[in-house]
């Protein structure tokens, strides 16, 4: 019996740790085209600016593979899977047999079509360790850096650049920054703060053409008509599930690889988890790709238990983000855009610079956002995930000290009784 995991990141780690809780003996093989020991890509911006050490990038202690009986095949790319023969084929020709397969191949940067002459220049993406190394070298004597995309990855890249003493110009299609994580008000606050640090934003805009001399980038053309000087272009408009190795197979792919509540794909003994997987979302029950660390880990964990034979039903994933730009922490959960028929509770204190917003639909919280006042906000995750009726304590939700004592005692009794 052999478990094979393609991808060596957050989801794969969740799976390894869960498999080993159930099955201490059988072989686990982990394949990754990246040469690194398991690391976190969520710190490459701080690594870019040498703000964190390499040691801080590693996601697990260095004896992790050894301790967990994992055979790592690193720096080796999987190119296809034969579901009949139950084999993963590597680029170097080797075939790896599996009994249970986990596809944890994550995401790949999306390159928007319609940028004229993009193929003629060298541009950068920002999702891997190697990308940070390459960008650091390239920006050393760059004056004008343009980042396309004001999502988490784009802005983290900008933040790293700021700490290297570099300024960047950001071009974003939406009319707010961080549209997946922040509402307009929070977005405006963060945008103002970043502008004060020297970042320039072009919102409602995009790049339509690049100008170069002998392949060397000189300028970018914006949809709005302006032309910006540019030596470096970073494209960070988002990631898409990296489904290439199973592309022309019978596996069900919608946006990502579709999984059921046991993290199984439609192919027997094949599971998927993390940024590549499209699994159940907890509020709506709809299957979505939610590319964040806690979801990747949870997907991997549930896949691991099920692969090892301990049946565990995945309750669904909640989208959530914890961001920090210009010394302003923000934590948000669930819906950002108010769903139809929802009620919005807001609190804004300009003196302490606190902003909170809660979305309620059918008496349940379906979205919550906290700017600066982030202590103990995890209770909102609890309320959202348990779908608890908040009517009886709604007036307290925005208070500074809102916490479990404000809940009806009945809820607390349930809470203590839960397994955790």
């Amino acid at each position: 019996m052999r478990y094979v995991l393609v991808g060596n990141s957050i989801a794969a780690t969740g799976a390894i740790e869960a498999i080993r809780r159930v099955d201490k003996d059988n072989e686990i093989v982990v394949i990754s085209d990246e040469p690194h020991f398991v690391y976190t890509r969520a710190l490459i911006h701080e690594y870019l600016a040498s703000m964190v050490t390499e040691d801080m990038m590693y996601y697990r202690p260095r004896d992790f593979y050894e301790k967990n009986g994992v055979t790592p095949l690193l720096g080796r790319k999987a190119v296809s899977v034969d579901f009949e023969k139950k084999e993963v084929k590597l680029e170097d020709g080797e075939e790896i047999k599996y009994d249970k397969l986990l596809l944890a191949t994550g995401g790949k940067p999306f390159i928007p079509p319609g940028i004229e002459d993009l193929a003629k220049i060298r541009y950068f993406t920002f999702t891997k360790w190697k990308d940070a190394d390459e960008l650091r070298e390239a920006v050393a004597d760059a004056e004008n850096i343009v980042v396309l995309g004001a999502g988490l990855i784009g802005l983290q890249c900008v933040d790293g650049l700021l700490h290297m003493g570099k300024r960047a110009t950001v071009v974003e299609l939406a009319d707010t920054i961080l549209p997946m994580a922040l509402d307009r008000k929070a977005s405006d606050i963060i945008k103002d703060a970043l502008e004060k640090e020297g970042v320039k934003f072009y919102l409602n805009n995009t790049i339509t053409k690049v100008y170069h001399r002998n392949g060397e980038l000189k300028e970018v053309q914006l949809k709005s008509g302006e032309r910006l000087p540019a030596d470096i272009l970073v494209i960070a408009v988002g990631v898409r599930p990296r489904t290439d190795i199973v592309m022309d197979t019978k596996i069900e792919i919608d946006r990502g690889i579709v999984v059921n509540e046991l993290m199984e794909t439609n192919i027997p003994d094949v599971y998927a988890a993390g940024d590549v997987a499209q699994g159940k979302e907890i509020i709506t029950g709809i299957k979505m790709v939610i590319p964040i660390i806690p979801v990747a880990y949870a997907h991997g964990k549930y896949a691991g238990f099920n692969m090892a034979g301990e049946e565990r039903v995945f309750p669904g994933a909640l989208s959530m983000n914890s961001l920090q730009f210009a010394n302003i922490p923000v934590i948000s959960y669930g819906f950002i855009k108010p769903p139809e028929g929802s009620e919005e509770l807001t609190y804004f204190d300009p003196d302490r610079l606190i902003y909170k917003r809660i979305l309620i639909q059918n008496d349940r919280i379906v979205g919550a956002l906290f700017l600066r006042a982030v202590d103990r906000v995890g209770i909102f995750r609890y309320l959202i995930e348990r779908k608890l009726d908040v009517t009886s304590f709604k007036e307290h939700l925005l208070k500074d000290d809102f916490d479990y004592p404000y809940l009806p005692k009945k809820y607390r009794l349930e809470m203590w009784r839960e397994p955790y």
Partner: protein
Amino acid sequence: MKVVFPIEERCIDCHLCEVACIVEHSETKDPILAYMVEGLSFNEEWSAFTPDPHEALEAGKPKPLNRTRVRNNGAGVSFSMMCRHCEEPKCVEACKNGSLYIAEDGRILLNEDKCVGCWMCIMACPWGAISRNPTRGNVKGLERTAISHKCDLCPDREIPACVMACPTEALIYIEKEEIKNYEVRFSR
């Protein structure tokens, strides 16, 4: 595994658990020195002032370093809550770089030299049991770098300091499995 469990019916909102926690984790473990010299104190004094522990420090407010916190609804319900040391810890699952981990004995601990203060754990923990420690930080060049702060069940003690300090036995040290069957005998 044993954890600290709050009995809300017995809590008198005295905050002695916070004091005990602060002193136990202070450099000197002496209440007078911890408060007067090390400048420690519980959350209330700074959180009323600002949501940012760094701003509190800069304004000369006491250092917010208690790892348990009395939560109160202002209408007679209070209890002290800290890390539950979950079997499947949400904080560990969300931690960006593996700074939070499950120790061999089941405790959830923080590698204080690795934490980058991204607050993914604060986001993830449904109990609100993780706070920010502004007196330490590992990210170079960041103006306000801090690390996470949480209950470690007092490694130098057999019974955690908060449990020993609680005058009304509103904090008990109990096997996780026994919590659901625990019956409160002296309620208020």
